[in-house]
């Protein structure tokens, strides 16, 4: 018994040290910075102020927050629309096929997401794969603008974040008792009715879980909006990055980060209230 306890301590200590030194302390430092004053040369003065938080609520910055949320929301909806049919389709397949297809969803994770995002340039640009195909087969005359706009950003976000939606939805869909669906079908329910009355209520936890995991990163993934949006659309992630690198206003950048963390907390609370399981969020 004693030995067991020792093992417990030994095995959890590294994780605790890791979390404290690399997550907790930097976060506290950011919280501390967000109440300080910024000097003209990009340094930080140790003078308490709340002005950074007031600046966050400036119209310009709120508009950026609104725009990022809209992009993140559209990304989340598209991910949901793709994930449900995919998960339901998987249910009818043999275990071997299922495992294989789920692995195919995971495989892109083995490559750096930045490199994968660059890959999309080759596909989407003016003389890229899609446009060359469409123009050379005379389907369209002028190449389509597939990137360097919000469309490009959303494609990149959906592509990068889709697995985070598929996995929780698939895991809750696969827990549904097959006989329920068979019974519904026997009683003459249409496909839509089966979805609305069986799938949706029984997978709501997975749906919210996936939505959180997609929505939150989508607000902040500045590299996708830089690469596929051509730097024309600023999302909240770009704004924070700019405060640390270009504008040299670390306190404002910190206040924006804290604001983003608060939004995340609120979303998680809503998730919990609706009946979401916290273990599902951390247990990915």
């Amino acid at each position, binding site marked *: 018994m004693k030995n067991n306890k020792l093992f417990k301590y030994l095995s959890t200590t590294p994780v605790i040290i890791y979390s404290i030194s690399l997550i907790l302390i930097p976060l506290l430092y950011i919280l501390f910075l967000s109440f300080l004053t910024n000097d003209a040369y990009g340094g930080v003065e140790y003078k308490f102020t709340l002005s950074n938080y007031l600046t966050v609520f400036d119209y310009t910055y709120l508009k950026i927050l609104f725009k990022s949320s809209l992009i993140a929301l559209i990304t989340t909806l598209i991910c949901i629309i793709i994930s449900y049919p995919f998960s339901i389709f998987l249910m009818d397949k043999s275990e071997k096929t299922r495992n294989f297809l789920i692995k195919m969803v995971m495989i892109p994770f083995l490559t750096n997401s930045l490199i994968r995002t660059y890959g999309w340039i080759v596909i989407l640009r003016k003389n890229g794969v899609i446009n060359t195909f469409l123009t050379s087969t005379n389907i369209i005359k002028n190449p389509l603008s597939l990137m360097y706009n919000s469309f490009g950003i959303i494609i990149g976000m959906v592509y990068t974040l889709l697995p985070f939606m598929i996995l929780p939805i698939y895991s809750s869909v696969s827990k549904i008792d097959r006989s329920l669906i068979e019974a519904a079908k026997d009683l003459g329910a249409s496909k839509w009715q089966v979805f609305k009355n069986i799938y949706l209520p029984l997978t709501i936890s997975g749906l919210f879980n996936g939505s959180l995991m997609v929505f939150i990163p989508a607000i902040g993934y500045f590299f996708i909006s830089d690469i596929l949006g051509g730097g024309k659309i600023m999302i909240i992630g770009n704004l924070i990055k700019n405060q640390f*690198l270009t504008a040299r206003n670390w306190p404002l950048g910190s206040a924006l980060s804290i604001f983003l963390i608060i939004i995340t907390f609120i979303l998680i609370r809503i998730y919990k209230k609706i009946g979401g399981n916290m273990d599902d969020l951390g247990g990915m």
Partner: protein
Amino acid sequence: MKKKLLLLLTILLLLTGCKNTKYKGTVNVLNWTSYIPDSVIRGFEKEYNIKVNYGTYSSNEELLAKITSSKKGTYDLIFPSDYMVELMIKRNIIEKIDKEKLSNIKNINESFLKQPFDKNNDYSLPFLLATTTLVVNKDNIKEDITSYKQLLNPKYKNNIVLLEDQRIVIGAALQALGYSINDTDSNHLEEAYNFLIDLKKNVKAFDSDSPKTFLITKEVDLGLVWNAEAILAKSENKNIEIVYPKDGYALSMDNYTIVKGSKNKENAYLLIDYLLRDENCIKIISEYPYISTNKNVGNYSTEELERIIKNGSYIENVGDKIKEIDKLWARIK
């Protein structure tokens, strides 16, 4: 199988171990991306038996963030631009240069010395001069482009690439309206904002890493880019024209400076002296065709150089006004 793997690992470890002990010293350099060819750096390592740890950054602000957030003595030699040199002197980040230690200092063209940001070159020596220029692909644009204002033409919808740099782009807008590139008057900035909102309809992308790619792949026909990027784009497509706009353009001088608290100062001096040699300056500008400050290299004639410098302007520190400019940039996006 396991044994073989272990053996392989041991050999690898030994090999890397050997490599490290070969050098008698190191020097830690932080420089702009795409500025010094790898072969030049390897040449220095071979000749002096000193290992060069070479890191890169893509904006002055990133450099400042890297220096101020790292431990003292992490970096030895850095290459800040004009206004950043001034700021680094004020913030006590760089130290005085001992010119006695640089025998090749005589190669520097004197017209590049004694700049307003460091009047006696106590802290910095010029390395390269960059300018922004307009680039026009004559294959598709028949009009003569000489001014930023012409870029507003609705014909050029989605056909322009601009540098992802708030000071440069807002500065260009200010110049198009007849103001100074460093103007911080709120009304003038507001006018620049309106100009850029109009211009944005024609902009395909903001990119600082490799705007030439947009021109080479014919994604766009117009661009506001650094001169070396323009020259490299032209070398891929002869019909690309380089234009110094009559409204003015930005100049940016990058300088050798030594970080305060440097632990490998002597090696840093050796590297500066090595980079000042004529043959190395030639190697650098043949790969990255900026304007060399070496008087024996001269990739631009004296008159040409005088004209370029006369009509361009350096970006200056605007102090606290940077917040207003940053907010303007956020509004434009």
